[in-house]
């Protein structure tokens, strides 16, 4: 449950920098909650009222200002996500970057990712992003099938997506590409096609997401109404394994449940989440963690604007995790990574039912032990909730 924001908790206007923020390296996530249109599967916090963008950019700049005044520090990774940060114009990006650079130092060699809708990719934008220091573009391709793209409510065509990836690569960005599997209209042919296309483009990084329908979206409603339009559980699982196998065959490392990277190109920002390292969050619904503190901003965009415009904190809640909670979470996230977790930590932190289920996973080849570490196999990841549920 979300705690209500308390005055004084989280961000304050005090200029005194707090020690923990300075001591450690840090990442920063910045949420841009703007979309031209909503995709049918998407439940991320975002609005299509683009006329809000001016207020939003000011508010975000304002939040960066207060946050930085108190906790400015060196950033090892920077991630502009959304929503659609690729919508932002030159002046808007400049405002945000100015506020950011005023209080934060972007470390040399930092990873700076910007999420982009392929439709927004254009030559001059690519140049602008490069000038601003963006090093990595994450492109929401989702599928190379026009029919599927339509059903997903994507703005772009497969042709445009193909061009966007190639152009981004040509401009020297590290490129990541999002694919979705288990989506309506997907058959063996469409899966094959995705594989062929990705391997032709050969981006540095690929995220392969099994469609999630746990939040109320138009697509989730469709799934209840006509489940037959969707590939069944087995077909979706097959697609996930098939794409994974092809990527691994082409030299990608399957380093997290949904993520693949060519050597040296794992998403450094995302790894910070998975390894429990500090990340600040800016913008509506953005969440972050510093040390044992976790916090999140309000999800309601209007409320976010009002708070910042009134000079108060956008924090929805903040709480301190116990050592045990952190440990358990580290296990949960660690088992989502190829590197797995140490057996010592499992023995120390996991309840007996978990250990019992882990034995079953090992016996069924869903988990593997190597030295003193255990990890899940791709088939194990597919059913990982059956194990991780026993952790919480």
């Amino acid at each position, binding site marked *: 449950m979300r705690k209500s924001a308390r005055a004084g908790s989280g961000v304050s206007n005090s200029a005194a920098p707090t020690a923990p923020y300075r001591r450690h390296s840090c990442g920063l996530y910045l949420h841009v909650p703007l979309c031209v249109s909503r995709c049918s599967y998407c439940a991320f916090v975002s609005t299509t009222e683009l006329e809000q963008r001016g207020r939003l950019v000011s508010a975000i700049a304002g939040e960066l200002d207060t946050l930085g005044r108190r906790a400015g520090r060196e950033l090892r990774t920077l991630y502009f996500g959304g929503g659609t940060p690729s919508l932002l114009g030159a002046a808007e990006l400049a405002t945000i970057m100015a506020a950011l650079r005023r209080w934060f130092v972007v470390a040399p060699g930092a990873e700076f990712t910007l999420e982009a809708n392929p439709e927004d990719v254009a030559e001059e934008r690519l140049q602008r992003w490069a000038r601003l220091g963006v090093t990595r573009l994450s492109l929401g391709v989702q599928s190379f099938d026009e029919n599927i793209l339509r059903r997903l409510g994507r703005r772009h065509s497969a042709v445009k997506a193909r061009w966007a990836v190639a152009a981004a690569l040509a401009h020297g960005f590290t490129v990541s590409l999002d694919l979705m599997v288990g989506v309506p209209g997907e058959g063996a042919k469409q899966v094959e096609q995705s594989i062929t296309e990705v391997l032709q483009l050969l981006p540095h990084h690929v995220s392969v997401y099994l469609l999630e329908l746990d939040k109320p979206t138009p697509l989730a409603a469709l799934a209840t109404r006509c489940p037959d339009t969707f590939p069944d559980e087995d077909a979706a699982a097959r697609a996930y394994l098939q794409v994974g196998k092809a990527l691994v065959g082409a030299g990608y490392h399957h380093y997290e449940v949904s993520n693949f990277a060519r050597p040296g190109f794992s998403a450094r920002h995302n790894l910070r989440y998975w390894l429990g390292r500090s990340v600040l969050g800016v913008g509506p619904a953005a969440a972050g963690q510093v040390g044992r503190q976790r916090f999140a901003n309000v999800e309601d965009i209007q409320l976010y604007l009002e708070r910042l415009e009134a000079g108060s904190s956008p924090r929805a809640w903040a709480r301190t995790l116990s050592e045990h909670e952190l440990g358990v979470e580290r296990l949960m996230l660690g088992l989502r990574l190829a590197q797995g977790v140490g057996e010592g930590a499992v023995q120390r932190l996991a309840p007996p039912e978990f250990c019992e289920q882990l034995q079953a996973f090992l016996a069924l080849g869903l988990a593997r032990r190597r030295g003193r570490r255990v990890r899940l196999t791709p088939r194990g990841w597919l059913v990982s909730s059956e194990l*991780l549920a026993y952790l919480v």
Partner: protein
Amino acid sequence: MDQRHIRNFCIIAHIDHGKSTLADRLLERTGALSSREMMEQVLDSMELERERGITIKAHTVTLRYRAADGEEYLLNLIDTPGHVDFSYEVSRSLAACEGALLVVDASQGVEAQTLANAYLAVAQGLELIPVLNKIDLPQADPERVRQQIEQVVGIDASHALAISAKSGVGVEAVLEALVAHVPPPAGDPHAPLRALVFDAAYDPFRGVRCLVRVVDGRLFRGQAVRFLASGREAAVDELGVFTPRPVAVEQLAAGEVGYVFAGLKELAHVQVGDTLAEASFLGPALPGFAEAKPMVFAGLYPVDSSAYDALREALEKLSLNDSAFRFQPDTSQALGFGFRCGFLGLLHMEVVQERLEREFGLQLLTTAPNVAYRILTKRGELQEVHNPAQLPPEGMIERIEEPFILATILTPDTYLGGILQLVQERRGEQVRLEYLGGGRVMLEYRLPLAEVVLDFYDRLKSVSRGYASFDYHFDGFRPGNLVRLDLVVNGEPVDALAVIVHRDRAYTRGRALARKLKETIPRQLFEVVVQAAIGSRAIAREVIKPLRKNVIAKCYGGDITRKRKLLERQKEGKKRLKRVGRVDIPQEAFLAVLKVDV
């Protein structure tokens, strides 16, 4: 009072025909109740009973009535349990009476419950006074119902009283008829004491309270007494009558009815039907005593295994005031620690279950009910089996006997076809089929109790759109061609799912059960094979494919907290699973077996 001025009677009626209303009227007419007390229908006392409109425990009330002849009479109204499950208790209550009012709703006619109890009363030699109730209703047809009573019950109904219990019309005539037609008690007031215990209840402050009908001699305070069947000796602490408020008296004489406290602390110390006599009495007990024997058994398990002790305490408390209820600890490899419980019948089981959940706040898992079986082994040993999982291997069994019932069903003839098909499916054997006129039919069938315990009532209701009425009496054990059907999950028989079925039906039932389990068991990490088997021979097989996908695809920053919640919810779901071998079986699966209809 002089025996010639005592009348002991009960009211026999189908549910809703007006028994309680008439009882209230009788109390009112004799001044036993103020109108404020009339608010409650006084003879029913437990909340649950009132809701279900049934009376589980017999109560009694003593009425003083000055009759037309100018004499004062003591009328003892003995309330009887209305439901078939308590037929032994009914018979003991009837044994305390010399007469009965047979109340029939004149707008409805004779129903199964009327009949079954009327037969019992006739068999016990009671004088039956037919009463046609609800004549105020426009659709009442007293003449037709009068004829029906003569035809079906087989008694003279020419003097049947037409009344309206609701308005009070004819109630005076009922009182006069009781005086005129119910024979006075015939016991010997000078003989040594013999009193019939026809009910026992537990009072948390006073201990066991018995209801008795003094047959011979007299019962007085301080008397040293003995229960002849149990041999237990006691001293009479207090005795009295209900008016309906309890009023202590110094003695109860032959023919009288009242309550007794004799310092007994446990209900188990008293058996309904026992004879209360002087401690030194050497003569014979009153006839008709039998131990109330549970016929239907089921496993009761706490949903949350940590509630085991609470369940045991609740069962102990419950058995304090329900002498027919039995329980003993039982373990099931599938359901863990729980209790095997014995009930008089299905309704009794439901009542107990509901009380446990309502009064004690327990969440229970109940296995499919089964009947008691008698086994004769090849070695010539007789054993009674209350749990299908404990049936000896087929090779060791010479003969299995199962309990039968004699069922009475009354129905509009429109539904006869459906009902005949139902009783045939249930291995019924026709004893009697009679057209009653007015488009009604009476059926008597002999049926295995096992075929009735599952969902017979529900099916009967649905094939007759609720118009058929049903009642039954236990009719002894008979041998049957029965086999144990095991449900085997990944090679392990699940004890709580074993059933005993007729060999001819084993195949279809096995297939249906296996299919049902396939539907209820969620996919697991590995393939699960569900088989129905007789002995080592599988007769049905279903495969549950392994689970392929249960994963959180996206897990980033702010989401981690939320995803954790998702996992917590999954874990909550897992709590309702019982692990058998390596397979997680949901509790619904154990209940689904109840719903399989073949």
